[in-house]
């Protein structure tokens, strides 16, 4: 019997919300899946109340499955065969699917969403289990099966699968609206972006560059990092702020120990200006308490004081090793450790203050009117779009 599993059954994650929220969740997830599937010819996405079905129509199942695993809001994905509500057909398909698997222990698990089907759950389990036992070498293990044969009886149709994989979980990107991520070339900010995406926040990125004190290489690195983040959010708007003039004024007017603190305050002001223009509801940073001088609790307090928008810090209590583990998982670590100076490190003072006070920070900022520079940074920010799997000119070289 030539049977091909050609439908991905997508199950929703974290759907504790109900009513309209659920509708939004499903609508957005479907939209995100549709976008992600655009690069596969023929693939069709069909939604229902509690499942989304992705019809392969000849597309490569391994690639489609791998791509679906990057989409947030999905708990599990099964590569399934759709059959009619007919117990003989169901048995045939289950046996055919199991014949391809190496000898294992198995269990049949039926979910009967359509209660009008003639057989109850237990009868279906037994019928399919017996058919598999008689026609294959597999053995039953109801406690720790190596293969779970999932059977979903739905109105008018039945889905059978032996291959279920974990999704990325979380919420569909965009369900929470947008936030502005401050991205450097470091390890932390892309991880912060990834975790924000996972909670359903769509991100826009802002990067501060200070040419000629920072190089083209540093910017390319940030673009490469952002490109990696498009696995979860297929298009990211990136704002590139030219920070040099403002940075030089800071260096000129602010005492060395406070330069980093004031610089961070300026960055927050600029990011907030851009965020307001772009209707972002929050700022996101990769800050983590205690990592560096500018990330002590005192610093965080003084820096946050300039923000009216909430500043989300997904990594605030993480250990470095845990951050690195996520960075490695999402493929940004190797890019982050490329050795180019970024905006934060060039102007690093030798002895930055670790316990700044708001009073002093505000006092120093009064020594010069920085606001025109902040406004200029916001107005002259350059916007580029970074898209998933975008073809680049140099691709032809490889």
């Amino acid at each position, binding site marked *: 019997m030539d049977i091909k599993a050609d439908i991905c059954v997508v199950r929703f994650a974290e759907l504790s919300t109900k009513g309209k929220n659920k509708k939004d969740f499903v609508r957005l997830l479907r939209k995100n899946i549709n976008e992600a599937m655009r690069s596969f010819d023929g693939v069709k996405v069909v939604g229902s109340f509690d499942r989304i079905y992705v019809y392969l129509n000849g597309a490569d199942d391994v690639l489609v499955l791998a791509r679906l695993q990057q989409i947030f809001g999905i708990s599990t994905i099964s590569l399934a065969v759709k059959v009619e509500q007919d117990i003989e057909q169901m048995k045939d398909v289950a046996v055919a699917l199991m014949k391809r698997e190496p000898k294992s222990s198995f269990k049949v698990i039926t979910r009967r969403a359509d209660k009008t089907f003639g057989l109850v759950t237990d009868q279906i389990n037994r019928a399919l289990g017996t058919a598999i036992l008689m026609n294959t070498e597999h053995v039953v293990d109801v406690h720790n099966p190596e293969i779970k044969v999932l059977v979903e009886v739905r109105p008018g149709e039945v889905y059978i699968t032996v291959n279920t994989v974990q999704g990325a979980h979380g919420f569909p990107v965009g369900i929470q609206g947008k936030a502005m991520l401050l991205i450097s070339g470091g390890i932390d900010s892309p991880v912060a972006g990834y975790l924000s995406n996972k909670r359903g926040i769509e991100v826009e990125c802002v990067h501060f560059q200070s040419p000629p004190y920072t*190089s*083209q*290489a540093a910017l*390319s690195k940030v673009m490469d990092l952002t490109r990696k983040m498009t696995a979860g959010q297929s298009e990211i708007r990136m704002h590139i702020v030219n920070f040099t003039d403002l940075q030089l004024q800071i260096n000129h007017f602010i005492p060395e120990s406070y330069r980093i603190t004031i610089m961070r305050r300026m960055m927050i002001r600029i990011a907030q200006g851009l965020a307001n223009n772009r209707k972002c509801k929050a700022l996101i940073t990769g800050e983590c308490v205690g990592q560096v001088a500018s990330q002590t609790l005192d610093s965080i307090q003084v820096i946050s004081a300039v923000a009216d928008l909430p500043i989300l810090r997904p990594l605030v209590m993480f250990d470095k090793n845990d951050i690195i583990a996520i960075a490695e998982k999402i493929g940004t670590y190797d890019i982050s450790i490329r050795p180019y100076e970024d905006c934060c490190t060039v102007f690093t003072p030798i002895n930055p203050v670790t316990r700044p006070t708001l009073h002093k920070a505000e006092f120093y900022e009064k020594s010069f009117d920085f606001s025109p520079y902040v406004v200029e940074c916001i107005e002259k920010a350059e916007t580029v779009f970074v898209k998933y799997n975008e073809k680049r000119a140099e691709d*032809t070289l*490889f």
Partner: protein
Amino acid sequence: MQSIPDIYFDYASTAPIHHEVIEATHTLLPQFYANPDSLHTLGYQVGDLMRISREKIASLLHVMPQMVIFTGSATEANNMAIKGAAFKNQHKGKHCITTKIEHSSVLNTFKQLQEYFGFEVDYLDVDAFGVLSYDQLKQSLRKDTILVSIMAINNEIGTIADIEQIKKIVKSSSSAILHVDFVQMLGKYPIDLNRIDLATFSAHKIGGLKGSGLLIRNTQVELMPLISGGQQEYSLRGGTSNTLANITFAKALRIALEKMVSEFSRIKEINDYLRSELTLIPQLDILTPQSGSAYILAFSYPSIPSEIMMNALSQRKIYVSAHSTCTSQSAYSHVHLAIGLKEHAANGVIRLSFGDQTTMNQAHRFIEVFKEIVKNGY
């Protein structure tokens, strides 16, 4: 008069450059000339392309990017591996093992180690098909053995070594570094670099540029640099990088691997045909074992010396080798003597080797021409 097209049966020496690689050079040569280690934008752009190439090669070979070392040739990679590992590890012992049928870049490197640096080297025997004795390998391993170097596919007669078996023996009964020369296997057979410490590859045998080799190094294995200089290639090979060769290597490799499976069955069919036809010719002896590489067919025809045969074929626009092109100036091949060929037989050896532009029609024409030469004596 219609001109006769060339028949190129010398892929084991070098392959024609793939047209996509040639196209890439047209972009690279005029635009990306900067030194990849320069810190300005032009330099960065070239460095970035080299980084991408390194990452792509790593991913195609299932290794980490930091394991990929660009060299100027496979010969250099072999030198770097053998001398580099021997010098760096000589405090642990000075005994090495290799076989009698290695490429000259391996054999002569070991001879140097013996003659000038006091190393002791065992050269394993092979049988009439070029197969080494795995028992002998096991028995030769000693406490002070620091390096074992064995080629995956012999370049002259096409014997395929059982690398899995070699891995098992070397890794279970010694702490020696294992180096494998994969030059004739790349893009032709699947390669598993797991548990191989040092592996040599070449670009120009798979449609890439000449002057381009690779050494894949398990980063646990330390090497002494043979060319001291700047920080290029992890300070293991100083000298401004050959960016053109290094960047295009990824493309050549990708293309070779993409068509590996379909090419294999095609080439195998051609090889089988040639083997069956040549077997019918009296006194002709096929040297490549049945289990050997499908891409190489070596035989000995003692009645006509190799040089005369090559000239006769060349006149008819068929291009072949006698034995390794790297030892083509010496009278007898060490490989042919190692598999026990008598001098008169070793004198009449021809090696055919195939690749992506080889066709069955060419094989038919070869047989036709070869029979004519056999009949006429020239």
